[in-house]
């Protein structure tokens, strides 16, 4: 097999003696699609924090395309091609939907180039395509702050897609969405497969099944098991720590 795109090796994160991640090792290959599940406090979000540069691991190495990500700033990691959607939908509330997307889609990230020039037409087209796909076109001139929770989730996902990263890290993309919205989100994420590497963190097992990605179970900061959903679901350890016994 080829070199992994993203590799975590023996990563530990300790917050004042409490270990959020303990010797976590994980490989992600180009084009791989992965779901991560696990009980609360398993270290799922910390795992993303480590990759995106928000938290510096106490121990271990993180490499992306063979380069270490330790000590690299969040913005540089993002520019290198790792994009992230947060657990709560974080959008720029006082910018309109269109401006939110255009800001994320901007290929120039430097202050002076933003002063000087407008958004290139290709990026504009892309923004409109994405906005249309997530059904936010009628809300293009509405401030993001006045959208509903579900729409904000979609805007957050759409902003991430507009950013055009190679690796998409999605933290609970369907939290608080209706069943139909969840279904559409699954379709959206599946449509990204192919050129993108996607990691989804979720609690919604229906959604995980819809996605059909391989599942990694985290528990107490470590990988408990990996594999297709059906296999993972029948693993007694997973049932014990996360899923609970099947209903009688």
């Amino acid at each position: 097999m080829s070199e992994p795109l993203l590799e975590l090796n023996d990563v530990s994160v300790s917050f004042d003696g409490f270990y959020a991640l303990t010797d976590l090792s994980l490989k992600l290959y180009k084009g791989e699609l992965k779901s991560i599940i696990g009980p609360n406090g398993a270290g799922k979000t910390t795992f993303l924090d480590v990759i995106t540069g928000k938290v510096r691991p106490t121990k271990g190495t993180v490499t992306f395309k063979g380069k270490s990500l330790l000590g690299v700033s969040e913005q540089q990691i993002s520019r290198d091609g790792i994009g992230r959607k947060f657990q709560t939908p974080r959008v720029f509330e006082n910018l309109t939907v269109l401006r939110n997307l255009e800001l994320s889609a901007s290929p120039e990230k430097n202050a002076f180039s933003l002063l000087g020039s407008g958004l290139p037409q290709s990026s504009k087209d892309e923004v409109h395509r994405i906005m249309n796909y997530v059904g936010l076109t009628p809300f293009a001139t509405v401030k993001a702050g006045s959208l509903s929770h579900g729409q904000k989730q979609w805007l957050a996902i759409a902003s991430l897609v507009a950013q055009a990263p190679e690796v998409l890290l999605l933290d609970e993309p369907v939290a608080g969405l209706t069943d139909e919205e969840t279904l559409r989100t699954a379709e959206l994420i599946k449509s990204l497969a192919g050129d993108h590497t996607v990691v989804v963190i979720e609690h919604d097992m229906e959604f995980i099944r819809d996605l059909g990605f391989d599942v990694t179970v985290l528990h107490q900061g470590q990988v408990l098991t990996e594999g297709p959903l059906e296999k993972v679901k029948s693993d007694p350890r997973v049932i014990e720590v996360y899923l609970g016994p099947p209903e009688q």
Partner: protein
Amino acid sequence: MKLFQRLVPWILLAIALFILPAALDDFRLNLFGRYFALSITALAIDLIWGYTGLLSLGQGIFFALGGYAVAMNLMLNTKSLAGGNGIPKFFENYGVDQLPFFWQPFWSPVFALMALWVIPAAVAGVVGWLIFRNRIKGVYFSIITQAALMVFFHFFNGQQKLFDGTNGLKTSTTELFGQLVGSPDMQVWFYRLTVVLLPLAFLVCRYFTSGRFGDALIAIRDDESRLRFAGFNPVPFKTIVFLVAGALCGISGALYTVQSGIVSPQYMSISFSIEMVIWVAVGGRGTLVGPIIGATLVNYLRSLVSEALPEAWLFVQGALFIFVVVLMPDGIYGWITKGGFRTFLAAFGIAKKAKTYPQLDKEAIPVD
């Protein structure tokens, strides 16, 4: 109507340039010149606070630096104020017979004209960059700027041998183009200069707040760390606006100094810098018209109240601030353009409820 709206700025400019000078006596006109000069500072604070979310309590530093730059030049070039060595007389009081080295370049009017905005901008740029790159934000940023203000205040206040200390530098008795700076003729020219520079400052602020750069500023205000994850480094953005705001405050301070007749360390007092913030809050932050309204109105009110009840102004100002924070959270301009009288009623819980709740934005309803 559209045409009228487009003409409004020109009408206001024409009123300020031609009607006010004809209608007001010299004293009042000079006061209005000062209000407009202060409006430039209000614009600067709006740029960093209203748009970027950086509440600086130290803009007085840059304001005073601009004032000192122009005052130093005027003092040096006034023969009647020169003492024995050809340097300003006040130096003799402290036994200084040699001009301090940093005064030397201020002989040149060109240098002074540059220095009055370049020096504040440079100080703001360096201080801002150091603060921002260390990711200091929110209330800590406010505290640091206020601490910096106190440092500058005590330095200028204590250094009699360098800046005449607490007395400040008087510009009204200095000469420019063979005329007294404090003379009515000169003051009318300074008024005109201010009226021309204020719209330019407005345009500068609009340049930075509109377009994609402005979007990034609002994004910094809303969620700075989220912007990092979109690949933007907020530090240059914040440093640039803080630097621009510093330069604008310097220009404002210079204009204010020549019209008030003196620059003194009092311009770097804590209360004055807080008042600047109040003007913006009263006028309406996050809009570019608001701060001009706020600075002009609050200072006009201040003049009126101080003339009628000299001791009452601080009470009125405090009350005004509370009134605005509680009843007009978006300031006067926001109040006019958004809620209007309803926001008052809503504050007391007696506003008529909107038909649909939560409020639906009409534009937000899909057409199909």
